[in-house]
């Protein structure tokens, strides 16, 4: 079961690298925000998988919860800021 979690972790990291392409070279700030939000979602699952691998899941689940909250708040705050300034070409 640990081997399965390790293989899944490596696959998830490959997907994070693919999302990092969009977060780096995205044509404007909105595409970067979408890529970063997708990376945060995948990181949440990677943290829980690491907790299952190290057998310390009661510690990692709290970190994962905080990560979910911060990812949501960051995306909403960025959306509000862009909506107020009205300039998305950077």
């Amino acid at each position, binding site marked *: *079961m640990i081997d399965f979690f390790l293989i899944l972790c490596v696959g998830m990291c490959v997907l994070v690298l693919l999302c990092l392409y969009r977060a780096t070279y995205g044509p404007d700030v*909105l595409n970067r925000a979408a890529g970063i939000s997708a990376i945060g979602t995948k990181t*949440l699952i990677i943290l829980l998988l690491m907790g299952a691998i190290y057998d310390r899941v009661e510690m990692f*689940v709290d970190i994962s919860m905080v990560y979910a909250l911060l990812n949501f708040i960051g995306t909403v705050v960025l959306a509000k800021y*862009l909506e107020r300034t009205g300039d998305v070409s950077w």
Partner: protein
Amino acid sequence: MVVKDIICIFFMLAGFFFFTTATLGLLRLPDFFTRLHATGKGDTLAVFLSLIGLAVYHGFSLTSAKIVFIAVFMFLAQPTATHAISRAAFRCGVQPWTMPKGGKK
């Protein structure tokens, strides 16, 4: 290999499949709204399936209850964040992609 491991592997593989499709959509689709359409729905379903699989693996405990809480929270928060950022894009004047005249791009 007990029954709960098999259920966990099934749910995690389903979640990984939807993560893969969402990432391919984020990379390959032509403009911002279509990319957000891929990740908004695909990631939500994938996170839900993966967290349910992990909750089944950890059995009936406080950790499992916290994981189910994260799953419910993500199921509410992810569409909200997607809606907020797509509304910001629409109000800033980003035009949705349409098929160019004359068929293929």
